């Protein structure tokens, strides 16, 4: 089997429709809060509601979000992924207040194979048209029971169907992550992931010029937002006990919607497949000053 292709930045230039966003937070590096990080990540998707389809297979997905999400995580592993590797510099088991692990403690995990652990279409009922936070958390718990999982190394992504708009989606947020308690009493990180393309350019559609990458511009938000929330769950699965800066921002938040310069959102290759992503915060970039990066092989080889 051929060695996977390394991740590379394929389309660093951006469309002109968006004014360049402020390049990263000015609040300094992420600081360890004493809690867990994800040391062995596995992602589970639940497609909530029979709006996705009435059987066990998704049949109503006008933007093809399910396939793109699954492809994104199925390619995010090993040496062919030098994007999420930037988060492996963060760790747990070190002193609260630490900003540079330097090999101490237990690092954020980087999977050797696909971190996609399972998918499930919960078509037992229609998802509410405007689900509450509590209903989304309850669906995550239901899915965790279905998969038989719990703990901070798993994350359940609750995928809402096309047309379902929880309060605040599109206007206040594109997605968010949190944690709740699984039926066995263990912690359970989960993500509220609405149907991102319903939000259009506000949540990433056409944010990055696609060039010849083959990426569909209207779908870019699916992986930009998906990668943002995944990385934040890796470093802060039980908010805000993990890695957060002095203003409360996590790794993805500090680098959201950067459209030019260092850390600009880009199209990258993960094991030979191309995806649009935003950069992630790296404490050890620029000799420890920190910055947003889209590629990370080591502390001395990142950009």
């Amino acid at each position, binding site marked *: 089997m051929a060695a996977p292709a390394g991740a590379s930045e394929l389309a660093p230039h951006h469309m002109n429709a968006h004014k360049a966003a402020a390049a990263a937070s000015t609040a300094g590096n992420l600081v360890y809060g004493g809690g867990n990080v994800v040391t062995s990540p596995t992602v589970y998707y639940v497609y909530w509601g029979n709006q996705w389809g009435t059987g066990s297979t998704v049949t109503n997905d006008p933007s093809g979000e399910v396939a793109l999400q699954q492809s994104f995580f199925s390619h995010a592993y090993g040496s062919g992924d030098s994007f999420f590797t930037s988060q492996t510099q963060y760790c747990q088991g070190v002193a609260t207040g630490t900003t540079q692990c330097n090999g101490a403690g237990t690092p954020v995990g980087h999977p050797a194979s696909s971190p996609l652990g399972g998918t499930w279409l919960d078509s037992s009922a229609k998802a509410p048209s405007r689900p509450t936070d509590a209903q989304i958390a309850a669906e995550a718990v239901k899915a965790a029971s279905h998969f038989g999982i719990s703990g901070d190394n798993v994350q359940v992504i609750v995928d809402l169907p096309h047309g379902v708009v929880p309060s605040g989606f599109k206007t*206040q947020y594109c997605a968010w992550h949190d944690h709740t308690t699984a039926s066995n009493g263990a912690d359970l990180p989960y993500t509220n992931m609405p149907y991102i393309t319903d939000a259009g350019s*506000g*949540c990433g559609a056409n944010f990055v010029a696609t060039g010849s990458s083959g990426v569909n511009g209207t779908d870019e938000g699916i992986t930009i937002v998906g990668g943002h929330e995944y990385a934040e769950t890796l470093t802060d699965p039980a908010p*805000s006990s993990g890695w957060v800066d*002095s*203003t409360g921002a996590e790794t993805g938040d500090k680098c959201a*919607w950067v459209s030019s310069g260092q850390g600009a959102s880009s199209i990258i290759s993960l094991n030979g497949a191309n995806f649009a992503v935003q950069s992630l915060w790296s404490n050890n970039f620029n000799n420890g000053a920190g910055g947003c990066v889209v590629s990370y092989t080591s502390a001395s080889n990142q950009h």
Partner: protein
Amino acid sequence: MNRALRLLPLAAVALLTACGSSAPTPAAAPAPDPSPTVLPACAKLPEPVLPHSAGELTQQQSGAYCLPRGQRVDIFLTAAQSGDTWQPVQATGAILAPANTGVMTAPLGVTPAMFVGTTDGTSVLSSAAPSGKTWKVTIVVKG
């Protein structure tokens, strides 16, 4: 927007603080402790959209809003047009502590902020946009 609150003169609050309560004080009562701080009237925060929040504010709100001590207020300031993104929200004093905004991906053009009320008192939240627009809200933290 609560116009009554917006028009509440802070001078009146100061005067109330100086005068204390109008209720009669028993002649034999011991000298009171130093006057407790009288906090200004405040309105209930609009309902939140994120978990663990007491309420939220946008650029549409002004005036004074109540925040129970130990709870969180979320702020979402949306740019009216591309390039007119609101600056990070600032809070006066030390009664509000920044909280985790990173749990969510904010839409393009939205400046988010979250604060937890740590001690009783008032703090002014403010921001400005490149076009010159400004936004200001008073947060009243009460236990």
